[in-house]
């Protein structure tokens, strides 16, 4: 029995891998191209993250009747994030004496790599995508959960009370909100009937009235809202920023991190904001498609434009919410998820399922 099963497994793997290896001749060229793509994506991520950090500071400042950074780089301190990045690069790297050093060093890498890998499936246009995985949504859902491991590792390895508390809270929060996020993603998948991000987007092509958010109104709208709320929690942002509640936990799981390792956490946080917002855009807001069916510019310009602007708008709303709402208490956070969001998302999923199966 066992032997048969192992044999089957080996055969399956071999069947999948051999044709791939058989055509190894193209691999070097392809890989070199791929490295260029990856480097470009890294550049995009860095620019996006630095821009978002600057944006957050300006948004928060203006909401709070301040000005925010004004000096570095001249116009409204546009170079502040670059300066901060250079500063963090030059900062001493302090690892607490009692820290679990390998884990401590690994944690920011895990978190950054996870957020970086999610970019593989973000469709900036019909063709401008690294890989249109046929399980794109599931892939993002899975990869983004790896962040939890990084956070727990960071909190555990720091040998600091605040870090550990922050990590535990963060883990509890991330896994809890994973559930409504998952159901809401399912709702989107149900409506589109595919897991590929490009295909999902294409089902919404043809103008704003085709977007997923209207498809099973109001259930699709509720699903979008739940996904967005879950996204806030998944990125540890106010009002769900209990894991790094500075008034009680200093800085939560990254209390002990300094220098470039700290920068990685920061980079990952803002990258994740972009990715989660992008997910909402892909599933419910038409992705790279424009609000009107007629296109005056080629797709490789209009696609990224619409995709990035929609996503940035959602990121802006995240910031807007952060500087409006106070932080939830940890028990409120948990009961909001388990007692309201999860039942609601379940019912909502059922309704969309009914809708889809009845009306096709």
């Amino acid at each position, binding site marked *: 029995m066992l032997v048969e099963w192992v044999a089957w497994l080996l055969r399956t793997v071999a069947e999948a891998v051999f044709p791939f290896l058989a055509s190894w001749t193209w691999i070097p060229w392809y890989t070199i191209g791929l490295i260029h793509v990856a480097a470009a994506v890294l550049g995009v991520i860095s620019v996006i993250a630095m821009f978002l950090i600057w944006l957050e500071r300006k*948004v928060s*400042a*203006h*909401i*709070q*009747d*301040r*000005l925010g950074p*004004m000096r570095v780089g001249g116009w409204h301190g546009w170079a502040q994030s670059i300066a901060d990045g250079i500063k963090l690069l030059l900062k001493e790297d302090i690892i607490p004496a009692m820290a679990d050093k390998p884990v401590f060093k690994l944690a920011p890498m895990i978190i950054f790599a996870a957020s970086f890998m999610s970019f593989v499936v973000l469709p900036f246009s019909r063709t401008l995508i690294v890989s249109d995985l046929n399980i794109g949504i599931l892939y993002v859902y899975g990869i983004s959960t790896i962040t939890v491991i990084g956070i727990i590792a960071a909190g555990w390895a720091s040998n600091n009370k605040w870090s550990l508390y922050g990590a535990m809270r963060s883990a509890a929060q991330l896994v809890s909100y994973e559930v409504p996020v998952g159901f809401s993603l399912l709702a989107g998948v149900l409506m589109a009937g595919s897991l590929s991000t490009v295909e999902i987007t294409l089902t919404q092509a043809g103008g704003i009235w085709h977007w997923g958010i209207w498809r099973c109104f109001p259930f699709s709208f509720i699903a979008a809202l739940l996904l967005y709320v879950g996204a806030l929690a998944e990125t540890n942002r106010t009002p769900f920023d209990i894991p790094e509640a500075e008034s009680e936990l200093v800085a939560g799981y990254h209390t002990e991190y300094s220098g470039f390792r700290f920068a990685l956490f920061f980079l990952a946080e803002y990258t994740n904001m972009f990715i989660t917002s992008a997910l909402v855009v892909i599933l419910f807001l038409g992705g790279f498609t424009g609000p009107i069916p007629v296109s005056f510019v080629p797709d490789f310009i209009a696609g990224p434009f619409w995709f990035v602007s929609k996503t940035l708008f959602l990121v802006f709303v995240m910031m*807007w*919410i952060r*500087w*409006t*709402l106070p932080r939830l208490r940890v028990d409120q956070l948990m009961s909001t998820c388990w007692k309201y969001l999860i039942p609601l998302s379940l019912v909502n999923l059922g309704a969309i399922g009914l809708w889809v199966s009845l009306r096709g």
Partner: protein
Amino acid sequence: MERLTFWQKLYLPEILRGLAVTTRHFFANLLGQRHTVTQQYPEQPTRVSPRYRGRHRLMRKEDGSPRCTACMLCATACPALCIHIEAAEHEDPTVEKYPAVFTIDELRCVFCGLCVEACPCDAIRMDTGVFALAAYKREHFLYPRNLLLGDEEPRHIAEGRAPLD
């Protein structure tokens, strides 16, 4: 306690109202800086109110000698124990004693102003409006008598030298 209605429990209207408030501020400040209170400090000097408690100074009598009689009431009132006075006999028997040493540790000071309240001679004031004390070493924050009297400017402290006494 008043029980919340369903709408109140949902919090959504309140959240939206909160978002409206922040939006109003955001755009008002973005477009016209209408509410912004930021001062660009070194270029735009900060105005301190007349009652602002800044760095201390010691007052003088009409003849130029310190008003302080070394009664140590300021040192007694000081909750941070930052005032150190050593009294000495004055040549003039009608004056009796004077502060031979009067040092304030501006790092320990909590700027509560109790020394000013305690002083029976109006010898110590905190009306200099100086709030940006800076020095390169902790010991340079020990402001001696001549500095508090204004005989000497704290300029050399900024230059990283010890205050002369």
